[in-house]
C-alpha cells in the first residue's frame, strides 16, 4: 500500500524542483526561476546565520589558544627560573665552601691526607652533595685525596678539565666518568702554594643530588626537565631523550643571561607543540657548561582545555548542520508557498484568457446568429409561401413569380453561406500560430461581423490603409483577438450616429501602427490608469467582465508590441497599437 503524503511533508517538499514545462502556462508565472530563488534564499540565510557563528567560534578558539599559550609560557618560565636558581645555588654554595676551605686551611693543611679527610667529612656534613676532595699541583699530580675511590697518586695532567681549571680561579666541569667510571661533576678552586706555584682544590659533586633536585620540579608526566651542555649532550636523564650522555636532537638555543621561553613544533615523534624554557646556568663564582631545559607538551598539559574545545567544535558543527537543515526546510516551505500561489495565479490567468477568447467567440456567435437568422426567416417564409400557393390555390401559379421566390431563397442561402465561411475562417485563426497575414483582410473580417449593427445604429465605420497590401508576420489568433476586443469595445462605447475610424500605417520599416478611434463616451482620467488592470470594468451593470482590455494589453505585449490610449470623457477614445512587422519567434510565449 502506498503511504499517503503527510501535509507537512508536502509543505516542505520542493515541488518547484519538479516544475513541468508548460508552454501555455509559463508566460503567466510572475517568477520564472524558483530554483534560483531557493538557492539564493538558502545562501543568504545560511551565510547570515553561519558566518557570525563560525567567526565567533574561530575568534573564541584563537583567544583560548592564546591564553593557553601565554599561561603555559608563564608557567614554563617560572619553573625554569626556579630550577635554574636552585641548580646555580647548589653549585655556587659548594664553590663558596671550597674557596673558604682553601683560604682558611692553606696548602700545608690541605696537602695532608689526614687533615684533608677531616675537611672532607666536615664539608659533607655541612653541605652534602660532595663525594670526595683532592689537592692537585700545577703538574697534575694528585697531592692528597679524601674519598671513597682509590685515586691516590693519579696524574691529571692530560685531563681537559685540569688544563681548563688552571686557567680560571673557579671551575665547573661537564658531567663525565673519568678514572672512577661513574658520572660526576668536578668543581675546582685554584690557589697558590707558599712557593708561588698554582695548586687546585678539587671536589666531585654527587650527580644523584642534582638529579633529585631537578626531579622535584617535575610537575607532571608531560613536563621534562634536564641539563645539557653546550654541545647538546645530556647531563641529567631526560624523559624524552634518554639517559645521561645521550645526544639530543635539540638545536642549542642562543646564549642569554635571562630565562627564555619559546613555542616550537616538533614532528620527530608525531607532531607536538612544545613550550620550551631554557636558561644558561652561571653562578657568581664561575660560568658553568650547563643549560637547563624545561619542556612542556602543550597537548598533554592542556588536555582538559583542548578536550573542551573539541566538544565545543562538535556542538558548533552539529548546530551548523541543524541550522542548515532548518534553513533548507524553511526555504523550501516559503518558496513552495510562493510557487503554489504563482501556479494558481498562472492557471487562473490562463483560464481567464481562455474564457475571454470564448467570450469573444460568443460575441461573434451572437453577431453571426443575427446575420443568419434573418436570411433563415426569409427562407422559411418564402418557402412557406410557395407551399401555401399550392395548398391554398388562392392565386394562379405564375411560374415567373415562383422562380422569383426561389431566387430569393437561393440569395438568402448564399448570404448564410458567406457568413458561415467567414466565421470558419475567423475561428480557424485561433488555432494557427505564426503566419503571414494580410492586415486589410483581417480588419475587413473583424468588421464584417459588425456591419449590420453599424447599419442599424448608423455608425460610420471608416478604414484607412496604405495603397500597397500590408503584410504582417505574427500570431494571427492573438492579433485577431486584439482587433475583435478593441472593435467590440468601440462599438459598445459609441452611440447612434457615432464614428469609428481605423488607420493603419507603417511608421518605421519594421513597425506597423494601428489606430482605432471612436467618438464614444470616453474614459475618465482616473479610469484611464486602471483600464488594463484585470477585472476593472465600467460596464459591470452590462455584464462586462473587466478582462477584455487587460487581456488585450497582455496579448499586445506577447506580440512584442505596445499599446497606448488617449481619451476624453464625452469626446472619444483613441487606442494606438504598434506591432513589429515580423515577430521574433524565440520570444513568443
Amino acid at each position, binding site marked *: 500500500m502506498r503511504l499517503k503524503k503527510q501535509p507537512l511533508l508536502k509543505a516542505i517538499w520542493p515541488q518547484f524542483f519538479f516544475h513541468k514545462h508548460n508552454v501555455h502556462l509559463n508566460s503567466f508565472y510572475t517568477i520564472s526561476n524558483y530554483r534560483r530563488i531557493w538557492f539564493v534564499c538558502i545562501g543568504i540565510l545560511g551565510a547570515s546565520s553561519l558566518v557570525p557563528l563560525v567567526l565567533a567560534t574561530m575568534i573564541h578558539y584563537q583567544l583560548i589558544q592564546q591564553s593557553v599559550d601565554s599561561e603555559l609560557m608563564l608557567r614554563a618560565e617560572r619553573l625554569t627560573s626556579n630550577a635554574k636558581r636552585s641548580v646555580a645555588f647548589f653549585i655556587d654554595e659548594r664553590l663558596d665552601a671550597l674557596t673558604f676551605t682553601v683560604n682558611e686551611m692553606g696548602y700545608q693543611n690541605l696537602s695532608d691526607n689526614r687533615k684533608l679527610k677531616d675537611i672532607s667529612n666536615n664539608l659533607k656534613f655541612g653541605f652534602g652533595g660532595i663525594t670526595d676532595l683532592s689537592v692537585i699541583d700545577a703538574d697534575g699530580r694528585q697531592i692528597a685525596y679524601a674519598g671513597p675511590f682509590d685515586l691516590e697518586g693519579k696524574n691529571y695532567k692530560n685531563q681537559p678539565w685540569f688544563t681548563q681549571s688552571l686557567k680560571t680561579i673557579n671551575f665547573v666541569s661537564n658531567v663525565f666518568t673519568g678514572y672512577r667510571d661513574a658520572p660526576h661533576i668536578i668543581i675546582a678552586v685554584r690557589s697558590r702554594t707558599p712557593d708561588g706555584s698554582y695548586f687546585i682544590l678539587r671536589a666531585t659533586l654527587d650527580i644523584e643530588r642534582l638529579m633529585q633536585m631537578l626531579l622535584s620540579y617535575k610537575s607532571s608526566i608531560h613536563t621534562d626537565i634536564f641539563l645539557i651542555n653546550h654541545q647538546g649532550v645530556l647531563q641529567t636523564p631526560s624523559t624524552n631523550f634518554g639517559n645521561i650522555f645521550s645526544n639530543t636532537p635539540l638545536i642549542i638555543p642562543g646564549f642569554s643571561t635571562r630565562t627564555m621561553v619559546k613555542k616550537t613544533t616538533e614532528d620527530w615523534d608525531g607532531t607536538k607543540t612544545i613550550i620550551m624554557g631554557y636558561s644558561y646556568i652561571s653562578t657568581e663564582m664561575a660560568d658553568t657548561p650547563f643549560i637547563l631545559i624545561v619542556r612542556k607538551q602543550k597537548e598533554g598539559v592542556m588536555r582538559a582545555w583542548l578536550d573542551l574545545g573539541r566538544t565545543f567544535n562538535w556542538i558548533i558543527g552539529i548546530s551548523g548542520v541543524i541550522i542548515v537543515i532548518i534553513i533548507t526546510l524553511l526555504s523550501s516551505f516559503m518558496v513552495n508557498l510562493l510557487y503554489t500561489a504563482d501556479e494558481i495565479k498562472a492557471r487562473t490567468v490562463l483560464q481567464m484568457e481562455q474564457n475571454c477568447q470564448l467570450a469573444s467567440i460568443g460575441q461573434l456567435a451572437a453577431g453571426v*446568429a443575427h446575420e443568419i*437568422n*434573418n436570411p433563415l*426567416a*426569409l427562407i422559411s*417564409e418564402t418557402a412557406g*409561401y410557395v407551399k401555401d400557393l399550392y395548398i391554398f390555390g388562392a392565386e394562379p401559379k405564375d411560374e415567373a413569380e415562383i422562380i422569383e421566390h426561389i431566387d430569393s431563397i437561393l440569395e438568402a442561402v448564399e448570404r448564410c453561406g458567406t457568413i458561415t465561411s467567414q466565421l470558419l475562417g475567423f475561428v480557424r485563426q485561433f488555432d494557427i500560430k505564426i503566419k503571414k497575414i494580410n492586415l486589410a483582410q483581417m480588419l475587413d473580417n473583424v468588421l464584417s461581423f459588425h456591419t449590420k*449593427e453599424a447599419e*442599424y445604429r448608423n455608425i460610420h465605420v471608416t478604414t484607412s490603409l496604405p495603397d500597397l497590401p500590408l503584410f504582417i508576420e505574427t500570431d494571427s489568433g492573438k492579433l485577431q483577438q486584439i482587433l475583435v476586443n478593441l472593435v467590440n469595445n468601440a462599438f459598445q462605447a459609441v452611440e447612434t450616429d457615432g464614428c469609428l475610424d481605423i488607420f493603419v500605417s507603417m511608421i518605421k520599416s519594421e513597425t506597423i501602427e494601428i489606430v482605432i478611434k471612436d467618438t464614444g463616451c470616453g474614459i475618465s482620467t482616473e479610469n484611464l490608469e486602471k483600464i488594463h488592470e484585470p477585472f476593472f470594468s465600467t460596464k459591470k451593470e452590462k*455584464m462586462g467582465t473587466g478582462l477584455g482590455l487587460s487581456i488585450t494589453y497582455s496579448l499586445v505585449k506577447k506580440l512584442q508590441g505596445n499599446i497606448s490610449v488617449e481619451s476624453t470623457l464625452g469626446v472619444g477614445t483613441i487606442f494606438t497599437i504598434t506591432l513589429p512587422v515580423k515577430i521574433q519567434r524565440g520570444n513568443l510565449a
Partner: protein
Amino acid sequence: MKHTDILIVDDEKKFAGMLSKRLTLRGVSCEVCYDGNSGLEWIKKYSQAVTMILLDLQLPDIYGTQVMAGIKEINPALPVVILTGHGTENDRKECMRLGAHDFANKPLSIDNIIEVLEQIKGNPGCD
C-alpha cells in the same frame, strides 16, 4: 378603418412581405411598417383597430425596445410580440420588463404566430 389582426414592424422588406401574404392567405389581416417611427405613427392612428404587434428589435431608425416603450405609452393594453434575428438575454429581460406579450427568435413558424394571435383573441384582457 377595418380591424387589423397583426401589425408587422420589420425592416426586412422581403420577409415582412412574405409573412404578410401568408397570414392573409390564412385569413389574418395584416399591415406592415418597415421602421420604428412609421410603426409608432400607424399605432397612434389605429391603436384601437389592431389585435397585436409583431415587432423586430434591430430597426434602422430606433431600437425595438424604444418602439415598445412608445407603444405602451399609446396603449398599454396592446399585446406586443417581439420577433428578432438575435435577441440577447438582456433584450429579452428588457422587453418583458416593458410589458411584451412574448419574445421569439427568427425563424418562427407561422402556425406559432397564429396560435399566439388566437390566444390573444380568446383572452382579450390578458395584457
